[in-house]
Every structure is written in C-alpha cells, then in structure tokens.
C-alpha cells in the first residue's frame, strides 16, 4: 500500500508550489510509493499551527516563520529547501520620489504580516528607520492585504510584492516598469529563505517517517525539475488543481517561469550559509515588533533527508 503524506502549503494553489502539484500529477509520488494530499493554504492558515495540531506531516513555510514557531514550542526542522533565492521585494512609485532606502522616511509602506513581516522589520532596523509613523525618521506601516491594490489605488507609496505574482499585477494594472522602483530583499542583504519543507523534530526519530520524507523530497524535487523544464504544462497542472477556478493560464505560466528563477541553483538541499545569513539577519533586529527569534536556534535544519534523497 502507498504511504500517506499530507503537505500543508503556505498559500493558495498557484505555481509558487508547482513542483508539488507536478510531482503529484505526473505520478512521481506514486512511483515513490506515496499517497500525497496537498492542502492549499490561505491568509488565515498558519501551516506551523496545522502541523503542531497534527493536521499535516510536512509543511511549506518561510524560514523566519519556521524559526519563530520553533522558539514558541513547535520544534520544526527544515528538511529541504527547494527555493534557493527569494522573490520578496518592495516596489515604490517613482512619482513619490523614492529612489533609495534613504528616501523611505515620511512614506507609507505596505507590509505583509501573518509571519511575513520579519524581513521588513530587520531591514528597517538596520536602516535605522522607525516604523511608528511618518516623520523625518520614520515610515507609516500599513498591513497590506495580499494583493497589489494599495499601490495601484495610491493608498501606499511602497508595497510588498513577490516577483512571481504581485509585481506582474502592478504592471498589468498599467503602471510601467519605468515608473517603478524595485528593492529586492536579497540584494539589500536581507534575504531570508523562502519556501522550505519543514517537519516536526520528533517525527524524524521515526525511521519509517524519515524514509517517507526521503522519498517525498526526492519526488518533489523531480517535480520541481520537471516544472522548470515544462512551464506550460506545469501551469496547466496547477490550474487543474486550483479548485477556486480563479487562476488564469497566462498568469500561472508567468509564475512558473519566475519561480524557476528562484529554484534554480539548488538540488533542494539547504545551504548552511543561507541558513546562517537568515538567522543572523533575524537576530540583528530583535524588537517587540519583530519577535521572530531572540536567540540562536539549534537543530533547526538537517541534511539527513536530502543526503539520502538526492544522493
């Protein structure tokens, strides 16, 4: 019989998770003897909470959120890191006069919360910019809903976007690339590892579970490779799996291509240097606003799975 695995995503069904859907659809999981259930996420779903409650075996989340959960008693361990680089960026309208981070004070900035706010606070802390209101050394932060509307509607000077999603929505709304200023967190030195696979530490002690995960990671990476090579087909697969019927093919094709840029350059094994960078960035900006972690985490990642899976 097939071994059952439940995967909880951090967001709704879209090409951001193409690898998993492709692996599912192309039978890679099947071949690995797995029966995988992929649960889409959403704005009110904390995958860390779902796994703590036993609702999933493995989750996709961002490392900052994963480490924060670990400090709060959900012992998450990173077992694989399909995303080598991050797609999170800040976009500002040129017309607001922003050219570099020095111009931020006095501006209104849209930030994603729900565990996505950690990189932003770390960046602002290092810039010495306060986040309690617009004046000569502070910005007004608003909790941006998960869309690009605030920039398009002119409610914010700068907003958070993902390269593979909201950025295009801005462009499609008729705002030209030449009218935008883009700050990439990675380039600014505040990149944090995005979509990784995390499981509960205790589960890893079970050899059977480990074996399942080895097969899961191997099959998933196969899915990611396939998606990189066949963007159109991958987008179709995502579309088939989107139960809301809200996605459009051309957007998903675009997204697969953009996501491919993020998964490029890794076989899925976590690069400890990236991990260290994420941790040191987080620790550089500990504050009540930014309660991600307060001390160096231990045992938050392992190569045990990827070593076997990707031999």
């Amino acid at each position, binding site marked *: 019989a097939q071994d059952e695995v439940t995967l909880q*995503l951090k967001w*709704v*069904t879209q090409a951001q998770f193409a690898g998993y859907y492709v692996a599912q659809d192309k039978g890679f999981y099947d071949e690995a003897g797995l029966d995988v259930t992929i*649960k*889409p*996420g*959403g*704005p*009110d*779903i*904390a995958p860390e*909470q*779902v796994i703590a*409650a*036993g*609702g999933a075996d493995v989750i996709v989340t961002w490392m900052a959120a994963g480490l924060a959960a670990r400090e709060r008693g959900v012992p998450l361990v990173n077992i694989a890191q399909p995303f080598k680089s991050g797609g999170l960026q800040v976009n500002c309208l040129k*017309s607001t006069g922003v050219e570099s981070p020095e111009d931020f004070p006095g501006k209104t900035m849209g930030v994603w919360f729900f565990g996505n706010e950690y990189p932003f606070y770390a960046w602002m802390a290092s810039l010495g910019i306060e986040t309690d209101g617009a004046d000569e050394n502070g910005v007004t932060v608003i909790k941006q*809903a*998960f*869309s*690009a*509307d605030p920039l*398009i*509607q*002119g409610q914010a000077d700068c907003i958070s976007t993902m390269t593979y999603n909201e950025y295009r*929505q801005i462009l*499609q*709304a*008729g705002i030209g690339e030449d*009218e935008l200023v883009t700050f990439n967190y990675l380039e600014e030195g505040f990149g944090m590892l995005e979509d990784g696979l995390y499981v509960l530490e205790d589960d890893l002690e079970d050899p059977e579970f480990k074996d399942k995960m080895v097969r899961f990671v191997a099959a998933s990476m196969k899915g990611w490779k396939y998606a990189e090579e066949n963007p159109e087909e991958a987008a179709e697969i995502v579309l088939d799996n*989107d*139960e*809301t*019927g*809200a*996605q*459009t093919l051309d*957007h998903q094709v675009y997204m697969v291509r953009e996501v491919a840029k993020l998964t490029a350059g890794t076989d899925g094994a976590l690069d400890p240097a990236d991990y260290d960078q994420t941790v040191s960035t987080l620790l550089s900006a500990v504050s009540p606003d930014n309660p991600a972690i307060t001390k160096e985490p231990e045992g938050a990642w392992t190569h045990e799975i990827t070593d076997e899976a990707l031999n």
Partner: protein
Amino acid sequence: MRSLLPVLTVVAAILAFWYVACIPMNIHFAAMQAERAGVPVTPEGMAPRREMGAIPLAARNPHIWAETWVQDKPRLPAPHQVAIELWQTTVEKKVTSKRSLVFHGWVTLSATLVGFGIGAVAGVLLAVGIVHSRAMDMSVMPWAIASQTIPILAIAPMIIVVLNSVGVQGLVPKAIISAYLSFFPVVVGMVKGLRSPTPMDLDLMRTWNASRDQTFRKLRLPASVPYLFASLKIGIAASLVGAIVGELPTGAARGLGARLLSGSYYGQTVQIWSALFATAILAAVLVAAIAAMERATLKRMGVGR
C-alpha cells in the same frame, strides 16, 4: 405584487447611481489606457492626474466615460459586467466546472444547510433546557450573549485547525462555524416562543393536571412555532455567513467564500462582485424557502389566515 413598481423604481435608481459612480471610481485607469491608445486626455501624464481628484478628472474627460464601464479589473465594476459574469458562471458553465458559481454555491450551501441543521437543533434543545431549568436559564443566557460578541473570523481558523487535528475536515468544520452563528437567534426566538403561552394558558393546563411533558407538547411547542420560524429566517442567513467565514481558513479551496477571497488576490473585482451577489441571492432564496415552509406549516396548523 403591490410592491413591484416601488421595488423596480428603487432598483433603477440604484443602477443609475451605480453607473454614475463607476465614472470617478475607474476614471484614472481609463485615462491611462486612453492615453496609451493615443486618445487625448487632459491633463496629460500620469503624475498630474494622480494629484487630481477623480471627479474633476471625470468632468474634464467626458469622452472616456464609456471606458469606465468596460474595464477588465475595475475598482468598481459596472452592473452589466457583474450581471454578465453571473450569467456566464452560472448558466453557461457546466455545474461541475470549478468556474461555475453553481458548483461553488453548492459547496457553500451544503455546509450552510448542515450547519443550520446543527445550529437549529442545538438552539431548540438549548431553549428547551433554558425554559425548563432555572439554573440553566440563569447561567447560560448571559454567556450565550457574550459568545456572540466574539469575532468569529478570529476563532474560525482555530476551530478548523483543532478539528483538523482530530481528523475532522471538509464540510463539518465549516458547518460547525455556521452552526455557531445560527444557534443564537434560534435560542433567543425559541425561548421567547416557548414562553409565549400566557399565565392563563398555563393555569388551564394545571387545572387539567397536565404533566410537564404534556404542557410542553400540547401548549409550549405549538405556541412557539411562529417564533421559531421568525428566528429560523435570521438563523439561516447567519448560517450562510458562517459557512463563508469558515471557507476562508479552510485553504480557500471551494465555495463562495473561497471565490471572494481568491478574487481579491488577483484584483478580479468582477469575480468578487459576482460572488457577493451570488451570496446575497442564495441568502434571499434560503430565507424565502423558510418563509414558504412557515406559510405551509402555519396553514396546516390553522394559524395562517
């Protein structure tokens, strides 16, 4: 149908206002597109227009008004856009299609109905308990009121997660949230109804030496029926809201709630508005269904005139 003419008048007024409102709402985008297409707009250039209020801009560019009613992702879609989307996603799509509002409506409806069933039964039972036990009356009622001041959207995710952890998922968690919202009006109405017999009615039962159970079945219960239906109508509307709220944290998978949400992620306002209207129509249908049951029941009871 004395109300037909007034209703049509009001609807016409709303539609007219709606079309007019689309102009300032969508004028900035329309101006930009027009400029790209080479149509002259005043003032020229994005930046000065951004500075300008929507109404002055609209006033100075009447020739592009029509463009505000046909955009793909407008701030405010025009009525006909919503109507067309509704038509296409209900009638023209196969009901099994993921893009069919009938499909999503059914997902929401099934959770609504199950939740409403649970909520109504729980509400009636609680009301029976409250009417028959002073202790329950005194202790439960204040907390039932307080329970309704809790923002359901805040605890819905927790309910989903907790139920998920014990292996309950799919329709049931949504139904429970939906039940949580619908039980309260039913309790309140049913308590009122069960207490509606006058002291005289109750005394009469006493003179016949009726048991508690007989008094309940032959007096309190039938007397409560009109109250029950009144509160069921409120309850089923609340149920629908609950089912939709419950859909938000279930992974935005299926249902009208998921449709509302996913529409907002991609700026698809037309989709949002049509899901909204679909919900309101569904609510109206559900309430009308209860009202029809009410009429039939009361007529059978001889109370309806």
